[in-house]
């Protein structure tokens, strides 16, 4: 259990981005009536932006 928690804690930015940031971007765009560029769905767009941001935070240790 402890090892599992520590493993997840080690990749927390990616977990946070996948679990929360992606649906927030997706549902936020839908609520605001925004469409994704290049004909992408809002979910695909959210996966790209949220995933990239999570990866950035994972590598650099900071979100902003």
């Amino acid at each position, binding site marked *: 259990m*402890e090892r599992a928690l520590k493993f997840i804690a080690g990749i927390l930015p990616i977990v946070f981005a996948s679990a929360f940031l992606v649906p*927030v971007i997706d549902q936020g765009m839908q609520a605001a009536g925004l469409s994704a560029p290049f004909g992408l769905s809002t979910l695909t767009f959210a996966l790209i932006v949220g995933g990239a941001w999570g990866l950035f935070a994972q590598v650099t240790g900071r979100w902003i």
Partner: protein
Amino acid sequence: MNAYSNILPADLSQLSEAELRKLENKIARKYSGKLPWIAVVWAFGNLAAWLSLWPLVMFDILPLWAAFPIAVINLALVYLPTHEAQHDIIARPGTKLRWLNELVGHATSWMMVLPFQVLRVTHLDHHRHTNDPELDTDITSKASGPWDALRQIVRQRQPNAKRNQDYLESLARNGRPDLIVLSLAYRIGFIAILGGLAWNGYALEALLLWWLPYQIAMTYIVFFLSWAPHHPGTHRTRYTNTRSWKSAVGNIGSMGMQFHIVHHLHPYIPLHLTPAAYREMRPILEARGCRLGDN
């Protein structure tokens, strides 16, 4: 007699160090020892108000835009009752209502995604080592001014922040490595709840009722409880490591922290009584060369 006190003589200049200390303690005792029901009602009232926002929003009784500022206020108000519990102010160990003290602490601290015991251990370390660059768990809020403080507060909430490391080291130093795992469980549980809500269509509710209010509230709490009362964060002695000051947003707006010096000197005095204790104690604090504002 002093205008605010029937304990202090008008002239303190002839009193010895020991006599000053005796009078100071006498005033402190006058304001302590009673159960601060206000903190208990505050804790559970605030918790109930915040919890009620979720069904109200999900069943479209309250619009999300209206619930958001209420949630921000709820999250901002959550820390002070648990702070009273950290210092055993509601009930000391071994007393009849000790369970209530612990209940207040545990029932509210989870909203801030931290176990009560972690808050207690790390906060007491802050009291023991105030403004120590190595050992003070809150030293990372040290900043040159209010804007720098806000920048620093945001910086110290990033994944690689020194503040995270300071908290972990404090737990290890105090022989509580078990709480490190519990902290991780809280953090992961928080993300699991947010994620569960978000992937079931409630992403904006989770964002605006918990995650964003939590971020705003933590900024506010650290600014007024950690940065402002200890600024500039360089004084290390008992009577100078905190200060009193007159806040532009008043005593309520600064969550009673204008009189934080009294809390550090006598942490068993309930928050709502620190202004009165401060006014009565002020001549002693002046005699001791404390850093006092115009309040």
